[in-house]
């Protein structure tokens, strides 16, 4: 807890750097994909997502207020960390994509497949997922800008969360429906 007493935005910067490093690692590994199947699974990929939450959760909202009130903690301005959430999520998707391609590569390497052809197909697979993730990434930021700039979308947090859960429920319902159809 002591680090939050001395923290200002400096701590937040450290978390951003760490998250960006993991993000870059995800992109690099996905694009330099080699499906030897020997690559270990990156169990720490979710750290990229967890990292920005830590300073935010202790500095803002109910927990932050409680800590400030009780222990007179500083409340550093860590909100801007939230801007890198999509980056962290992007890195998770790309690392997962890389792991999937590697897994298939490993399974297929002993099945008599033409290795070059297999690499090319897995490359297409990785590239397509990358493009979809990139589209989602750009659209995510555009949606956020729309929420900030357009007065219609500039609603409070609680209504925003309610809208989110409504969309979430519809999406999950459709996913399950699609699964059942299959």
């Amino acid at each position, binding site marked *: 807890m002591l680090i939050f007493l001395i923290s200002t935005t400096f701590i937040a910067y450290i978390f951003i750097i760490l998250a960006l490093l993991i993000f870059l690692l995800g992109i690099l590994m996905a694009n330099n994909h080699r499906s030897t199947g020997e690559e270990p699974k990156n169990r720490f990929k979710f750290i990229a997502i967890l990292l920005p939450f830590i300073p935010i959760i202790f500095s803002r909202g109910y927990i932050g207020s409680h800590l400030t009130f009780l222990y007179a903690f500083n409340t550093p301005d860590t*909100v801007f960390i939230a801007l890198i959430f999509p980056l962290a999520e992007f890195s998770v998707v790309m690392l997962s994509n890389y792991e999937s391609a590697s897994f*298939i590569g490993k399974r297929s390497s002993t099945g008599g497949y033409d290795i070059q052809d297999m690499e090319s197909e897995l490359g297409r*697979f990785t590239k397509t997922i990358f493009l979809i993730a990139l589209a989602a990434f750009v659209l*995510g930021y555009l*949606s*956020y800008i729309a929420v900030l700039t357009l007065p219609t979308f500039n609603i409070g947090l609680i209504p925003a969360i309610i809208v989110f859960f409504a969309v979430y429920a519809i*999406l999950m319902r459709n996913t399950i429906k*699609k*699964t059942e159809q*299959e």
Partner: protein
Amino acid sequence: MIKEWSKQLITIVLLAGFVAIFALLATEKTIILGIFFPIIFVFIIIYTVKDEDISLTFDIPNRMKVGDEALFHIRIKSSGGFGLFNISLPTFSEMEIVEGTNVCLMFKSIKERSKDVTYKIKATRRGIFELTDSDITYIPVIGMVRKKKITVKTSKTIEVVPAISMLKKSQFQFRSKVIKPRIAISRLGPPSTDFESIRDYIPGDPYKTINWKATARRNSQDKLLVNVYEREGMKTFIFILDRGSNMLMGTTSQNPLEYSIPLILSGAKYLTSKGSNVGFWETRAYTEPKSSYIQPSSGGDTYNKLQRILIRVEAVKGRNIKYKPDKALSHIISETLPQVMFITSINSLNYAAIAEFSSALISAGARLTLMDILTQGISAKFRREDLIGLFQRKVIKGAKSEFYKVFPTRCSIIQWEPAAESIGLAASRLAMLAGW
């Protein structure tokens, strides 16, 4: 893959919920930025996935020769689905892929996709083979659905004909040690159109020779009458192929039966080209009602018939081969006095039965040449190449002399070691003794 992507997509969807809870705890609207990415990503994937649709177009030959290499060209086309297709393309038993591969992955994105796969196959054994179906496993990117197995029927057969050697008279050594008569040994050739007489029907007589009018006139007996036509004076040769389990020593593509087939076909091709009559019989199992046979005649049609039979012929496992000439064979032998060439592989279990069979053929009037295919060399080939030398004919001949003693003296026995000797050499030995 399926488990991987299921986990990942579920994780991404859960992530959105997780971020929302944090946004609520931190009472910070900026955090909802972290909700947009997973929601949009999953939304794009779910709503771009269509039902899978895949079709295959085959460009595969219908016929090839043993040892030939043929190109299998397959076009894979997919207009639906979003994921990986793991495809296993058709082959057949008794072949080997010499170039390329029949398994491949194909990733189908949102756009229509087609892919050409070419591989080269070498046929290792004769036969008519049904091509295997194409097994396709569809692994959707969405991952939440189970992977789906699709089978595309090939519904095609491939005929692998035996590779034969074109034998020439010049390659035979005709200085035979056996004294041969100056005139043709077989006195009778194929029937001409000149009527000779009428006699009772005997099994083996062609149905077209039945004289229905004469049969009807003699209604007191239930026997059929046939017309007998004068025969042309060409030599008659009959090949008899043993189908016992002794012919299976070795592998499915290298055993006495497989070596016998090109030898018979090469001999038949040579003899029919000379205008001789060639017939064919095969030994049959006790359980089989009848065996395939070809009445002696000449011409390309006889060769084609023989080839059709020999593509399908298979040995019978177990010790239930009936070594006894059937009525049709006995009749043909007694009528044409042919040169009979019996292709077999003698061992300690079957030599007595084969000797008895040989005696029966000779008694019926055949001039018999027995070709004993040696299997020791074939076995050694699959163990140690350098051991082939140990199984030379001289060594084996000594070991087999005990078996040969029980054969009738009028039966000429020759040996062939197919692992070390060519078909041409075997044919020349046959030619020498059988008077080709």
